[in-house]
């Protein structure tokens, strides 16, 4: 065999493999591949803490503010553990949620009521309910796991000058409030720029837009602002994040019923 034959063979092999894999990749495969890559890029953050301001606005423009502190512990191979502690409104100050989120099983969730000093297990089968009166459902703010959806790649599109993949995802969780979501994923950074939600009747429900992305630890992108607009009610919720800290040393023991009671 001479060199050119070898080269031809190698090229032939490469060529034969390449188009096959491309041809075999369905829109579903490509959608899943994008989700896997996005998940991979967010892996390994360990833990994080952040402050969140939630501004609720109704159709008339009346606003209501909540201040919430959030601690998150990354759990490899399962949904994350998180604790949300309310600072405002003042009448719910000290109220806290402890959540062990899961992709397709119901989450485990406990609510701490400081006035009664009562820890109450919450029936979290329904993840579609609003989080503290906002336009965000529990399932919108929960950690995003690959298994939560099945995917389909739709097209490439430029969104506000950003090259995006547009993918459609279908909730795997049977009690989800959505039939589908259309997500614009930044091609360069694999982070969501916009998500459109369709309700159980497949009617346009909400649009979530991300703004002011910042990179932490040279790897993890977090948006400073998340704006959720409900097209059916005219209400909206703006989340403003600040003081993001990563790898703060949070442990599993910071996420149990006793630490929930101590959260303040």
């Amino acid at each position, binding site marked *: 065999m001479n060199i050119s034959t070898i080269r031809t063979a190698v090229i032939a092999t490469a060529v034969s493999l390449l188009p096959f894999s491309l041809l075999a990749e369905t829109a579903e495969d490509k959608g899943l591949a994008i989700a896997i890559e996005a998940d991979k890029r967010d892996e390994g953050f360990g833990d994080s803490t952040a402050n969140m301001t939630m501004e609720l606005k109704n159709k008339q423009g009346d606003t209501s503010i909540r201040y919430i502190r959030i601690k998150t512990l990354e759990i490899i191979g399962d949904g994350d553990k998180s604790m949300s502690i309310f600072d405002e409104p*003042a009448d719910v100050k*000290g109220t806290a949620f402890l959540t062990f989120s899961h992709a397709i099983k119901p989450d485990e969730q406990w609510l701490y009521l400081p006035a009664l000093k009562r820890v109450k297990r919450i029936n979290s089968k329904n993840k579609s309910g*609003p989080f503290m009166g906002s336009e965000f459902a529990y399932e919108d703010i929960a950690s995003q796991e690959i298994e939560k959806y099945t995917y389909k790649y739709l097209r490439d599109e430029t969104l506000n000058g950003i090259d995006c993949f547009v993918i459609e995802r279908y909730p795997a969780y049977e009690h989800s409030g959505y039939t589908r979501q259309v997500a614009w994923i930044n091609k360069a950074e694999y982070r969501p720029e916009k998500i459109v939600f369709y309700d159980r009747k497949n009617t346009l429900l909400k649009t979530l837009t991300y703004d002011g992305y910042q990179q932490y630890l040279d790897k993890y992108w977090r948006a400073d602002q998340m704006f959720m607009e409900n097209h059916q009610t005219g209400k909206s919720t703006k989340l403003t994040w600040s003081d993001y800290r990563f790898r703060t040393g949070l442990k599993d023991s910071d996420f149990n019923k006793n630490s929930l009671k*101590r959260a303040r």
Partner: protein
Amino acid sequence: MKRVLTGITLGMAVLQTPAIGGEWSGYVSGQFRGFFEDPVDPRQHNTYLSAAAEPRFDHSWQGGDHSFDTRLFYRVDQYDDNRTHGDVRELSWTGVFDTLEITAGISKVFWGVAETQHLVDIINQTDLVENVDGEDKLGQPMIKLSTVQDWGIIDFFVLPYFRERTFSGVEGRPRPEVVIDTDSDAIYDFEAGQDHTDLAVRYSHYIGEWEFGLSYFSGIDRLPSDFFPIAFDPNGQPTTVVPVYSLINQAGIDGQVFFGDWTWKLEAINKEYRSGRRKGSHTFQSVTGFEYTWVGFTGGVSDLGFVVEYHYSDANKRETIFDNDLATALRYVMNDAQSTEILMGFLTDANTRTAAGFIEASRRFGQNWLLEAELRTYNGTEEGRPLFSFRFDNFVQIDLAYYF
């Protein structure tokens, strides 16, 4: 008093450490109570105004591993001297040492899962003069050790001092026709009296959708075992009584499980009297029921919950109105920005058909105001039935609180 001083000294010491996350919060509130009918006793009134304040100071350090919590409460009532009262709801230090958590001072704990009666919840005394629903509790001096393990949480309690239950005063309302005098000394039918050191232990855990707890308490029953008459009318009928407190051992079990949108609940206690007239006798009480939540029942975001709880007691009827009763309630949660909620229902005694009805509604206004309204009714209160004393005591209560 010595204990209180120790607590304050501890508090001062803590306050001198560099403040990280120390902050004030709390509320001040005004309350109106209006009764629909004239009272049984002419010394009572038809409308009552009162004001309350509950300042809180929380301070934590070492990343939250140590904390100091203070909650003080004071209410001034227009007429009821007993309802004009203050309480140190909380004055405690909590420290975390690996898997061990220690709390020392005055504190509060809650046990149990039921909504309409708290059977296993025995650590804190009920501040009954605050509200007839018994949800308000007095601060309890304690040392609590708690450990979180893979197999569950164990809490040990040493409770060195007993708090007596509060009751409405002569001019207060609602109250039983016979005045329960809390100014005179209560009777303790055992040696140590109020200084008796109570002990308690609780184990709780969860497995999947199941939550459960086992508890054991040895000490002074928070509920008086009897009332001793100290004043009589000309016919020899008692007009004033004092509570009698007894020692008990109480074993409790509580649990709940989710099945879809259903939550099934159970609380049960077995109480053994260790002193006094009933020494050696046992009583068994239970609450069993469910809560079903219809999520988004109007097609929107509000929830409608149905609560049904059955109360059983083998004790004779004079001791408890929860002997064979059914509590049914509807909970409407709007899930709106103002956190609007309405809970309404009634407790019906299956034997006598006496019923106690209630509506509780709350809504936030602006960022800091909370308006709460309550209606309480007593129905089927014919003579000889458990709530006969309260036959004219249907009332509305409106609370407006400013939180800071």
